[in-house]
């Protein structure tokens, strides 16, 4: 049994205390378990354990048709809803040669960015909860509810809408969609200064995060880290720019990066991403035709052969999928590349040497979601 702990007490070291953080711990954002060796408040060793939410996505999806696979992917990164569906949809479209109308691409991109804002709002609330502030959590969840209301009107479900499909999206936009989104963006722009005041400009947040958990550029790349964590280490790698998909080539936005690589930089990058998402959404509200096709022609029974890796930039980083089809209507193999899965590998790098309280802040800045990590 000892190997499940993963951290053996060192003989003759009586000054080290081994504590077991998780799977039920308020700061682990789910069911992560980290076995931590503490010397006073300083962390000497850290061994992460995952798999408490292993739901056999990859095996179950092998016995489902491609259309049935899409709703399963929703449950991976459950904070960012439709974003998970896109890699599978893109890969299958590539392999089956399905054309997507321009308007459908824009609708997809708008939902993608709405969910990025929603996910970053959840992150902001829970990160501040980890740092001890209760109130931002309730503010951000309120704003997230508005996004979910918009999504629900069009897609029919709040969190896990199963909205994208091969060749476009499942149904047309709700007639109020443009008005709703514009209203929400106005509302969010009024709220963002409050959030900046509560989070980024807060001197206690500064004291807790600046210079804490520094991830160097080289280490971040070698660890396969992606998303805001990578960009906070100074690498301007964003799948939206690097390997553009959907309507991203048609909109202008920047990739916010920071060279500091510390926890505060990761906070800052996520804030800037919200601003960039607002910018993208505003452009798409202008560009998207009010009416038109929302779905291309896709065969009712997809039969696919070949293999394809497609990735998108979801709220946590590069969310990829490796689809292998053997000519049947069910995938031969689907491998999901979770962004938070790779991001979470840096736990030992960042935890060791930090204070225990810092570890909480670092973990919140990595923003793990366990549906995607354990799959």
């Amino acid at each position, binding site marked *: 049994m000892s190997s499940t702990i993963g951290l053996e007490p060192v003989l003759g070291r009586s000054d080290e205390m081994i504590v077991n953080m998780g799977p*039920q711990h*308020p700061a682990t954002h789910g069911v992560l378990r980290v076995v931590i060796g503490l010397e006073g408040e300083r962390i000497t060793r850290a061994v992460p354990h995952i798999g408490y939410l292993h*739901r*056999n*996505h990859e095996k179950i999806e092998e016995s489902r048709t491609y259309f049935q696979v899409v709703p399963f992917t929703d449950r991976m990164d459950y904070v960012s809803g439709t974003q998970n569906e896109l890699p599978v949809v893109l890969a299958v479209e590539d392999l089956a040669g399905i054309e997507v109308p321009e308007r459908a691409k824009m609708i997809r991109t708008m939902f993608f960015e709405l969910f990025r804002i929603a996910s970053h709002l959840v992150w902001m609330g829970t990160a501040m909860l980890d740092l001890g502030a209760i109130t931002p959590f309730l503010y951000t969840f309120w704003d997230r509810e508005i996004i979910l209301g918009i999504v629900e009107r069009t897609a029919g479900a*709040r*969190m896990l809408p199963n909205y994208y499909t091969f060749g476009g999206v499942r149904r047309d936009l709700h007639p109020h969609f443009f008005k709703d989104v514009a209203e929400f963006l106005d509302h969010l722009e009024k709220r963002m200064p409050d959030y900046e005041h509560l989070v980024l400009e807060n001197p206690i947040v500064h004291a807790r995060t600046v210079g804490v958990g520094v991830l160097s550029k080289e280490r971040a790349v070698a660890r396969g880290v992606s998303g805001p964590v990578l960009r906070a280490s100074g690498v301007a790698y964003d799948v939206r720019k690097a390997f553009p998909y959907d309507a991203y080539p048609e909109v202008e936005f920047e990739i916010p990066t920071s060279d500091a690589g510390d926890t505060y930089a990761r906070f800052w990058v996520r804030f800037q991403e919200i601003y960039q998402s607002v910018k993208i959404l505003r452009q798409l509200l202008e560009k998207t035709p009010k009416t038109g096709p929302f779905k291309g022609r896709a065969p009712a029974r997809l039969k696919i052969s070949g293999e394809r890796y497609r990735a998108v930039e979801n709220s946590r980083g590069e969310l990829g999928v490796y689809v292998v089809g053997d000519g049947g209507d069910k995938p031969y193999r689907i491998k999901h590349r979770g962004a938070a899965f790779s991001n979470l590998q840096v736990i030992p790098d960042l935890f060791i040497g930090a204070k225990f309280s810092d570890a909480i802040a670092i973990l919140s800045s990595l923003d793990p979601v366990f*549906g995607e990590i354990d799959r």
Partner: protein
Amino acid sequence: MGLLGSDERPRDIILGTLDDLINLARSRSMWPLTFGIACCAIEMMATWDPKVDADRFGMFFRNTPRQADVMIVSGTVNKKLAKRLRRLYDQMAEPKWVISMGACANQGGPFRHGYSVVEGVDKIVPVDVYIPGCPPRPEALLQALLLLRDKISDRELRYKRPQEIATDYDVFAEPGEDGRIPVL
């Protein structure tokens, strides 16, 4: 727990009334355990957000199982987590209740055909209220909490806790050689 919590004792008037008062208090002050598992956990958090605000009914989260009254199983339970879930349930102080939130906790949900997913959390712990949905809306969780409230305080609805539940899963921690329960 003693006299007040026992259901087998004949009800005489004075103790019966006191019992009802205590049960009224229990039903009006249910503190759930902070134990989010999967997708439903986000909706569980959203139940405490300003829109739904379960705090209106006197419920707020406690992080430690010792001080919690309700365990909301919010998500898929797999075989690796099952032992820990049972351990948490055992750590909670009596009286305690369990709400099974969402399809996964009810019966495995879309993942019930997986190799490592437990087909329903009621195989591990006794469940008081089931909520359908994948994931259920926050309003559904609020309704379940209010149902549980009525179940606790209403004498007609009060149920007898099953003493043992049949389980296929090896989730009960056995004391090790030194008499202490090993770290899972």
